[in-house]
């Protein structure tokens, strides 16, 4: 009935998420997949042992909802070990798409007899990478990343240290690396179920107030538009925004949970000075996390953000209710530039109070979820949806949302089309159908109205997206995926004085991915993509071949990629997810006349050590200017 496999593939993470990321990046330049992809990468390396029947362990699959975690745990406790992914898809609240999403991140290793968790698991990852090119457009230097992580039964801790290219490693008024993050987590078995000191992220309800990992907002063809379960989790990503720094305490009694948190963090912001040259206000936040130019260094840590909050939730197997509240205090007031159209409704002031209430109900074939939130100062937002499974093999999702332009939440991550927390009213729906044996079809559409100006559009506008995807997987070593995506947005036209005109730009993209494994240890992925932009008429074409070779006699694995791309301009650029270092990701944008090749090797000299090296070369020509880029990466990981 299903065509699910966990076998090694050319794409190290054989997941629909990577496909989705390529499409979203092509249509939404604001989207930053770093946190999500790093979290998934961590899960891939430490897969969830679902046969332990441990709810906390299963809850590490952060994209699952509370209902799904509960159903999965109950199934293992009642029926014993899961031996095949096939049986997971038959569980209530699960479907084939969800299981495909989980597949790379779970282990079916039988429970019992394992003492993996007795002493915990420590992982040290050191990565260095550098880029060289003939046009000097990239900052010289190397990116270095150190990640240390220990997961124990009661105590876990982690450190992340990162320097982007050009950022100095210094102890002068600094902690050494440019970005340093860490946490210690205590997990208890009594009333206090966890305490996190250091950096952490939160997800509550449907994400109108807090969601540090907006998986469900990443793709229209996600198995569900519901946010995952409520989470207070340590933060270990190298992305320098979107987390809290302080303490977070979770108390649990039966089905009732309370989360108390406090955070104080310095964040990058553009400041305005008074007549004496002292900072008196903030004009905007800076989220790139790069501190290389003078302006970037001056903007660093200019704003103090203090957040204190509380979440209470509880319910039964059939419904769950939660209330979330937070108070935010900034060290400087926000004073955005009101002469810019897309800034006129931005947050002003230095204090923000948020309150949200969420509700989920249903079992098996029908789930209803909703959340409403208000911000003071500001306005309100609400989102509601249904996930229905009217028959086996058919899943239907629908979600309606209204996010007022003046609704403010700085850590929101609800399902939506644009970025930010407000200024959107929309409706989305998707249908997942097992149309025939081995043939799976997903159709999805999203319409939203942006009532006030947004970036690059000075008038109310409309955004629409539609996706159709088909997958034929007759054998676990053979699959053919076809996708068509159409996305249209309105943008300003003309650069003169006066009110700009508006133009709807539509991007059509068709992609075909064929993957097979003709021999044991050898995997091939061929990819072709075409993009077309109207009304400019710009077009792009991409051909890409991936080869993955696992040599059984020596502990070596090789990945090779060769890609050819021709596009008329940057607008019709194409993306192709590329295998990369552990806990890292690469989704290069290809445009102009572009040829890209990469070779990556993984060597495991001992059971606990893995060494990776990657070399990529890219030859790109745009506007008669040719740029040759080289990329070198090296990594060592020790696990004990």
């Amino acid at each position, binding site marked *: 009935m299903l065509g699910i496999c966990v076998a090694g593939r050319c794409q190290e993470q054989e997941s629909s998420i990577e496909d989705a990321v390529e499409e979203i990046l092509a249509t939404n330049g604001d989207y930053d997949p770093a946190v999500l992809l790093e979290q998934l990468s961590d899960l891939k390396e430490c897969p969830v042992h679902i046969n332990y029947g441990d709810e906390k362990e299963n809850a590490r699959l952060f994209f699952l909802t509370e209902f799904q975690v509960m159903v999965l745990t109950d199934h293992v406790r009642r029926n014993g070990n899961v031996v095949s992914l096939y049986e997971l898809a038959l569980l209530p609240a699960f479907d084939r798409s969800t299981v495909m999403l989980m597949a790379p991140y779970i282990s079916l290793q039988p429970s019992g007899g394992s003492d993996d968790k007795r002493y915990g698991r420590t992982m040290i990852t050191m990565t260095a990478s550098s880029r060289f090119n003939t046009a000097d457009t990239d900052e010289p230097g190397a990116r270095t990343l150190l990640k240390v992580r220990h997961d124990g039964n009661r105590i876990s801790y982690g450190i992340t240290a990162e320097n982007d290219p050009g950022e100095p490693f210094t102890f002068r008024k600094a902690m050494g690396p440019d970005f340093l993050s860490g946490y210690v987590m205590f997990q208890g078995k009594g009333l206090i179920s966890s305490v996190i000191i250091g950096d952490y992220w939160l997800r509550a309800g449907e994400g109108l107030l807090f969601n540090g990992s907006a998986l469900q907002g990443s793709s229209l063809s996600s198995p569900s538009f519901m946010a995952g379960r409520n989470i207070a989790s340590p933060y270990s990503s190298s992305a320098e925004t979107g987390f809290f720094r302080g303490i977070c305490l979770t108390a649990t009694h039966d089905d009732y949970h309370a989360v108390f948190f406090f955070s104080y963090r310095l964040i990058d912001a553009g400041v305005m000075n008074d007549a004496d040259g002292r900072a008196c206000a903030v004009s905007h936040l800076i989220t790139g996390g790069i501190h290389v130019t003078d302006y970037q260094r001056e903007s660093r840590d200019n704003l103090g953000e203090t957040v204190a909050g509380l979440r209470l939730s509880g319910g039964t197997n059939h419904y769950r209710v939660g209330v979330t509240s937070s108070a935010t205090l900034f060290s400087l007031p926000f004073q955005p530039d009101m002469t810019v159209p897309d800034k006129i409704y931005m947050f002003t002031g230095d204090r923000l109070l948020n309150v949200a209430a969420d509700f989920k109900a249903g079992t098996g074939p029908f789930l209803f979820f909703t959340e409403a939130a208000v911000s003071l100062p500001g306005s309100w937002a609400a989102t509601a949806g249904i996930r229905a499974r*009217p*028959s086996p*093999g*058919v899943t239907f999702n629908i979600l309606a949302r209204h996010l007022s332009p003046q609704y403010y939440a700085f850590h929101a991550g609800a399902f939506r089309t644009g970025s930010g927390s407000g200024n959107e009213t929309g409706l989305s*729906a998707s*249908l997942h*159908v097992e149309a025939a044996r081995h043939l799976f079809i997903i159709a999805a*559409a999203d*319409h939203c*109205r942006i009532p006030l100006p947004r970036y690059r559009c000075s008038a109310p506008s409309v955004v629409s997206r539609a996706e159709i995807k088909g997958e034929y997987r007759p054998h676990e070593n053979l699959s053919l995926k076809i996708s068509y995506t159409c996305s249209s947005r309105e943008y300003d036209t003309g650069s003169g004085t006066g009110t700009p005109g508006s133009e709807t730009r539509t991007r059509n993209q068709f992609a075909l991915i064929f993957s097979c494994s003709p021999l044991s240890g050898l995997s091939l992925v061929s990819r072709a993509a075409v993009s077309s932009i109207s009304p400019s008429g710009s077009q792009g074409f991409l051909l890409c071949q991936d080869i993955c070779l696992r040599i059984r006699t020596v502990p070596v694995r090789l990945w090779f990629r060769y890609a050819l791309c021709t596009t008329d301009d940057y607008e019709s650029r194409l993306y192709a997810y590329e295998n990369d270092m552990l806990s890292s990701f690469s989704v290069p944008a290809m445009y102009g006349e572009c040829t890209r090749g990469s070779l990556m090797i993984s060597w495991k000299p001992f059971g606990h050590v893995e060494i990776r090296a990657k070399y990529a070369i890219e030859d790109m020509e745009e506007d008669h200017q040719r740029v040759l880029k080289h990329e070198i990466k090296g990594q060592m990981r020790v696990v004990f």
Partner: protein
Amino acid sequence: MLRWNAVLFLYFVIAPVLRAGEPLYIPHGAAEAGMAYAVTATPGHWSCFNNQALMTSASGVTVSAAIETRFLMPALSSKGLSAVIAHGRVPLGVTAVHYGNADYYRIMTGLGSAVSLSGGVSLGVQADYITERASGDYRDVSHLTFEAGMVCALSSSVTLGLHIFNPLTALNSLPSSIDAGLQWERTEELLLTLSCSKTTSEPVSIQCGMSWDVAGHLTLRSGYMTSPSSFALGLGWETGPLKTDLGFIVNSITGVTSALTFIWTIK
């Protein structure tokens, strides 16, 4: 086999000369609206007037009243009455629809029938009389035209439907339209539909719909059409001989179109 060949021959001879514009016949039925009008192959009272061949799946006598308000503007509302009499081998359908207001209105009346051929194939045809009246100095016009449909059961669960409206564009200057659709009865409770339609001077529209019989008396529906790009939502409630359907079509630019239908079944 001969009938099959005749049907296909007629279709392929007529189809190339067809032209397709805004359909004069505004599709009706809240159940149909809830599925974004992806009903070319889906049986239902008002579907019979979207594809006359579907009358062969009707039984008994059904009478219906329907109202649809485009973008919630009364001046753009249409009111319809219809009946399908399916007592004998040859069913009969009659419909009258009023669209507009006192200053401008259009009345469309139709009389149609259908016949079942062997091999799961049905054919239907309807004669339409269309009257258009406007206040002021504008000339009132009337047209006589026809529409036809075919339904073919491809398998026990998949049905194909084809429909053409006014293939006489060259003669009467009215726009014409062509629809082709599939219905997949995945289970007794769940219907999935897909349609493609082209109207003169309009872009091709693809519609898909879903109807889910949740609890015997309650039906939930949803759908999507590409042109104009809109979502559709609906529900139906059946109590004894009376069936009530409610449908909404949501367009992010023009707003919400609502539809309400009452269908009374007389045994």
